[in-house]
């Protein structure tokens, strides 16, 4: 029986549990003298929970555990010479067995018998049925495949029986509990509370998942490439990952990537910070409410545009424009019409990223500037300062910690930004200080090392996880520090 069908049956039993439980409670409430403790719906829900929850738990555990058990018992029956081989070879054999097993299900019993007698013909036979095999299966594989099918079928049958039995047993157990003194509401609320707690733990699980998954892969990487060569290497030259060859040497130096990331982020901040802060000041201090309500959402549209659109804008509009501009300028100045700004360059990527970051700076700073208490402004204006003097000498110093926090958060966004740099910054990993030349970033290299079908065994792919955890650590530190600054200074003026 398929999993979705089992789910449907359990859901139906649960629904029946709700209806019958509620009806029973209503009947008791009409007849019995002691008042029912809870509303009928709670008794119904109680029955439904007992009918559904244990069954679903069993289903989940079974679905996870059964393939692991079947897998290991099939592998235990591998011939001895195969067991002596590497893990990769064993996985490959197991994969072949899996496809043979799938193939056997489409054959008639006579054909299966024939195939077991003569495994050499199996590939042709299955090819005709639309099941391609990578190679000719060996005799033991065919019998293993038959065994695999048998075990899977047994497991599925047992699972179906266990799940439905659990559902029915739960139903009757809970149904018999319905009585006037029984506190169904409290029990149901306990279940709800438990599920709320589970939901809020998913956030923790995500973080644990991020750190654990990247650490395990990164540690594998550091076993092949020493950590200090990664963190302090100045050459990025991973070579290509040849299939199966894990020893093709490459150089994995983080420094050029980090330099590119920071340089592009710096250019972006140079664009975004003045523009963002001045917009925020104008919006908070000068703009009329009407202008504010019109301009603020428009600026925030910039934050809502997907980054891929910015990347495309940089690639097709800003980059070529800067390149042609530099050609003309160079021509006017020296008579030599050649461009000194590349279409893909630090300045292109940084500038476009800066535009993307404007709304982050401006709305965060706007909130902080508006939060500076009125009394400070009134005091300064009352002493005869102009508005700009009030802003420069009183409001901004008061808002400074918050603004610094906002800028740190914006910087972490600039460092983690991917699509703009993938399209506009170039892929050449080098260290130089000319902003008109292409450089590359950590995120670009994560994408380029992992796009395409590669196995997770070569340093060429594993390095992406080492880069990822570096990126995660940098942005995490920036964010925590920003939060710390904001929290520490927030109440100073309140």
């Amino acid at each position, binding site marked *: 029986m398929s999993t979705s069908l089992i789910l449907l049956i359990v859901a139906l039993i649960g629904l029946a549990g709700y209806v019958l439980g509620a009806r029973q409670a209503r009947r008791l409430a009409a007849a019995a003298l002691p008042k029912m403790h809870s509303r009928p719906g709670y008794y119904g829900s109680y029955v439904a929970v007992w009918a559904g929850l244990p069954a679903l738990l069993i289903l989940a555990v079974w679905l996870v555990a059964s393939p692991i058990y079947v897998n290991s018992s099939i592998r235990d029956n591998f011939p001895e010479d195969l067991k002596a081989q590497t893990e990769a070879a064993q996985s490959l054999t197991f994969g072949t067995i899996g496809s043979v097993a799938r193939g056997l299900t489409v054959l008639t019993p006579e054909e299966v018998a024939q195939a077991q007698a003569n495994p050499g013909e199996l590939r042709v036979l299955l090819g005709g049925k639309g099941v391609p095999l990578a190679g000719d299966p060996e005799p033991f594989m065919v019998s293993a495949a038959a065994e695999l099918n048998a075990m899977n079928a047994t497991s599925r049958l047992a699972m179906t029986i266990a799940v439905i039995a659990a559902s029915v047993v739960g139903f009757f157990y809970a149904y018999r509990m319905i009585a006037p003194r029984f506190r169904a509401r409290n029990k149901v609320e306990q279940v709800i509370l438990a599920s709320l707690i589970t939901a809020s733990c998913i956030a923790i699980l995500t973080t644990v998942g991020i750190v654990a998954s990247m650490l395990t892969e990164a540690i594998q990487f550091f076993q092949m490439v020493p950590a200090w060569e990664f963190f302090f290497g100045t050459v990025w030259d991973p070579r290509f990952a040849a299939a199966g060859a894990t020893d093709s040497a490459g150089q994995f130096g983080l420094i050029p990537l980090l330099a590119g990331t920071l340089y592009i982020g710096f250019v972006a901040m140079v664009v975004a910070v003045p523009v963002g802060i001045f917009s925020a000041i104008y919006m908070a201090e000068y703009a009329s409410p009407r202008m504010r309500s019109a301009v603020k959402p428009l600026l925030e549209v910039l934050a809502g545009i*997907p980054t891929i659109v910015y990347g495309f804008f940089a690639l097709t509009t800003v980059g070529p424009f800067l390149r042609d501009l530099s050609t003309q300028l160079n021509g006017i100045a020296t008579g030599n019409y050649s461009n000194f700004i590349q279409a893909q360059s630090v300045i292109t990527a940084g500038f476009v990223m800066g535009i993307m970051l404007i709304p982050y700076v401006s709305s965060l700073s706007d909130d902080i500037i508006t939060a500076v208490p009125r009394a400070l402004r009134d005091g300064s204006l009352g002493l005869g300062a102009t508005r700009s003097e009030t802003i420069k000498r009183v409001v901004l110093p008061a808002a400074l910690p918050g603004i610094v926090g906002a800028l740190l958060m914006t910087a972490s966004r600039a*460092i983690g930004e991917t699509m703009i740099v993938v399209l506009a910054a170039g892929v050449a990993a080098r260290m130089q200080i000319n902003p008109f030349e292409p450089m590359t970033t950590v995120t670009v290299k994560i994408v380029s090392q992992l796009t395409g079908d590669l196995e997770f065994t070569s340093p060429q792919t594993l390095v992406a996880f080492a880069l990822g955890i570096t990126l995660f650590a940098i942005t995490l530190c920036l964010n925590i520090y920003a939060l710390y600054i904001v929290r520490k200074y927030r109440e100073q003026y309140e």
Partner: protein
Amino acid sequence: MTNTASPLAGAVPARPARRDIGIKRRYAAERRFRIYGIAAISFGLLFLFLLLWSVGSKGYTAFQQTMITIPVEFSEQIIDKDNERDTDPTKLMTANYPVVARNALAAALGADPGDRQQMREIGRMLSEGVRSQLRNMVVADPSIIGTTQTVSLLAAGEIDSALKGQMNLDVPEANRRISDQQVGWMEQLTEAGALAKEFNTGIFFNGASSRPEAAGVGVALIGSLYMMGIVLVLSLPIGVAASIYLEEFAPKNRWTDLIEVNINNLAAVPSIVYGLLGLSVFIGFAGLPRSAALVGGLVLTLMTLPTIIIATRAALKAVPPSIRAAALGLGASKMQTIFHHVLPLAMPGILTGTIIGLAHALGETAPLLLIGMVAFVANYPTTPMDPATALPVQIYMWANEAERAFVERTSGAIIILLLFLIVMNVGAILLRRRFERRW
């Protein structure tokens, strides 16, 4: 009284020279400061309009496609010379349809079918897409073989660009991708009314194609739709449940403080890190298929959760305590108070936050690149487990194509994406306006 005052006033010595407090300079500084502010805002708005204009001006032509409408003779000679179609089902699938189309165009132009050079150029005016176009017609209704039907054929990308004026026809013939002869034929066809721009439905329904004129975002739209469905179904209940616990039940202790800080940080983790998580956990560990919309949906769910949790908590916080006190006072349990009274009142805020989170997820590209959604998928995915692409990933793939016609397609796809985002955001704003209550 006024009379007596005037001599007195005369006795007052001349007013002391005004102390120079630099008022002019200070007012000038004030004006400059304001101008900086206006300049900064104008800079931001200018680039917003430049961005939209650049995409719009490049992309609006993608919604039109040049079609050549001519009578096509489905010649039995070419399609099925030996009359084998009843015995060999692959015959109709593999017939040489481009020749059928080419002969039809040659006939419409009055060209000599014997001139191979000319015939090759005529063939190049039609898209590769005519093969499947005619094939689908014939397979759907084999009885049209031997008859002549009027068909709108896809023109080649170069012809399309030239007709839309995107190709400079003044440069020497050797330097452009269509010949003078082809330009002449184009004019001839246009005058005859056979060559015209039509509304391009293909861009909405077609799958990936290496030919720009036959490429569309159909598969990507379905993939994005699946992912948005998964994100909505998973992240809304989980996010709301988590926020209810944190906001209403959680005791103030280190554990809940940790969860809080953690959620705030997750909201700021670079999206590409979620891609790495999805790659190693969902694909590497759990063994889900690569390129599947299911994996993309799960990754985007994890990415959207913090946004939804933060928005939901703000919405719950905004419900005044008096509501809770009243419900509790009437004997409702805490759970009843929250689910019957607080949650419905917070719902508009929660939905607004959810829609904005979904809009972000819809435009997200980087994590999807890592889980293998950069794939050439020509067929519609029927389940979330099938290979699919997403709208922003399709844009990324097209942006990397060299052909000029793909720039137009990319911009067209961006316009479609932005339209979706606008609809979602306007929906969120309307929802907030309509249902928001101020206490």
